[in-house]
């Protein structure tokens, strides 16, 4: 019995990481209708910055801070240099460029930092264990769940309670009318890329810490899973994305045990996606709002 609870918990941890990753994707999609696959490169980039700076300074906190500063700049640069000039073309053109960037970055990481990946020099956290009523969890798993909860709650408050947040939601639902009400659409875009990238980098850095391992291909499969998640969530819906992330994390966790002998872990996610879409072609969220 406790085995199944363990599985559910592991699934929940991965679900939280997927959520941090997928929020940026769904925001970008809502705003620009671009499937921002290079978001996975931002995720890996965050992990790399964190591990390199942490090993350089000897302080993991500084590494995370560096990742949280560098990733938004990287994300905004992707928007400015790659997507903005392609906005007038069909969205799949930008998507191909995005895939190209992911492939480029991934191979760049491999060439620059080696195929075997990097590890944190001093990382006591994954082995620091806590006991919750028979469920053994480590401190990084707790940190992932806490980070995801805090960040996503703040994001929800920000979009519903502040002027900028309301302007942002207005831009997502209708950029032309939002502009005529004085919302600076371009600023909103930069803001979304900055926040989305920071969340993805945080997710990447935390997973790097959890596995104590940062490798070039870490973003690859996560990127397509995050795509599956935002589609499951109903494309552009924040609430749907959140639900889909958690559900997928748990489904994968159990799926690997029950049907793992004829499908691998990544295929399970997509089998689930296709099964849901057959029943609900517009995803779990269904409502079209940010």
């Amino acid at each position: 019995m406790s085995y199944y609870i363990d599985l559910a918990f592991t699934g929940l941890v991965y679900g939280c990481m997927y959520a941090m990753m997928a929020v940026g994707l769904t925001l970008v999609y809502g705003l620009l209708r671009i499937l921002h696959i290079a978001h996975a490169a931002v995720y890996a980039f965050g992990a790399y910055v964190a591990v390199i700076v942490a090993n350089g300074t000897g302080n993991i906190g500084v590494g995370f801070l560096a990742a949280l500063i560098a990733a938004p700049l990287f994300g905004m640069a992707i928007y400015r240099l790659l997507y903005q000039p392609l906005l007038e073309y069909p969205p799949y053109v930008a998507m191909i460029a995005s895939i190209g960037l992911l492939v480029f970055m991934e191979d760049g990481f491999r060439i620059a930092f080696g195929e075997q990946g990097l590890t944190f020099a001093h990382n006591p956290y994954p082995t620091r264990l806590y006991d919750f009523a028979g469920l053994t969890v480590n401190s990084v798993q707790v940190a992932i769940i806490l980070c995801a909860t805090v960040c996503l709650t703040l994001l929800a408050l920000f979009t519903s309670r502040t002027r900028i947040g309301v302007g942002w939601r207005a831009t997502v639902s209708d950029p032309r009318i939002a502009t005529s009400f004085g919302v600076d659409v371009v600023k909103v875009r930069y803001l979304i890329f900055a926040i989305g990238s920071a969340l993805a980098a945080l997710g990447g850095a935390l997973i790097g810490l959890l596995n104590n391992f940062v490798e070039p291909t870490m973003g690859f499969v996560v990127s397509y899973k995050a795509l599956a998640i935002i589609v499951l969530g109903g494309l552009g819906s924040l609430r749907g994305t959140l639900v889909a992330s958690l559900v997928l994390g748990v489904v994968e966790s159990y799926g690997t045990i029950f049907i793992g002998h004829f499908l691998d872990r990544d295929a399970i996610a997509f089998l689930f996606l296709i099964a849901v879409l057959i029943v609900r072609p517009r995803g779990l969220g269904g409502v079209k709002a940010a």
Partner: protein
Amino acid sequence: MSAYAFSVLAIMGINIMLAVSLNMITGFCGQFSLGHAAFYGSGAYAAAYFAAAGAPVVLALFAGIVVAGLLGLVVGFASLRLRDDFLAVTTIGVSFLFVGFVRKQAWLGAEMGISRIPPSGLGSEGNALLILACALATIAFSLYVNRSWMGFAFHAVSDDENTARTIGIPASAYKLVAFTLGTAIAGLAGGLYAYFTQFIVPDSFGFIVSVTLMAMVVIGGTGSTLGVVAAAIILTLLPEAFRFINDYRLLIFGGLLVLVVRFAPEGIAGLGRAVLRMGRRR
């Protein structure tokens, strides 16, 4: 010509077949598919399975066509319910699902793939020539379709599905036809590939292949058969030209993809049209 030249020609022919058939689905009919490698792979596996079981060449190739086409028909049904980006992500899913499934099937060789594929009996030169002939036939077929009533219907569905329905074009039927035709050709390409290498593994049909094929379509200029053929030839020869720095192959591929799309978003066909326009103005 050397054996190496023949093998490059064969790969080029296969890529042309795949890119042109994907262009029928995406370029003509507007159904974005990032799962083409799955159909290519299912054709290859079906042909390899039958060939290894002792079926004659024609029958094995036919099996590849049928299996890939049927799978395409099934995914085509998904396109009736899902539009645009939902379809794009679903086809990404098909790509991962195919590799994830094949990898775990003992009767398909699992990770090791199928390696006991008997020779086709044509020799390596004969194989390359057969592949090139099929590639030329595919190009001719694509050009013919584009000018036919079916091509017109495809374009109408691609431009605006609802309007197409209003003027009496059965959009659903045409989408299914586009998927079945395109994937059946990919299945034939897969069968030819199986006979050409006599050895197939799951990773030869992964997502990155689907992306490369879509890159050929976009770089060639979506919808333009000849542009796509040019892109398929260039993207086949480029890695061969860069073989001396094999370690950086993906880096260069990714970088080029970004640069080409960024600076020529309409592809080779778009550049060609721009040159023609400049010529006329003079």
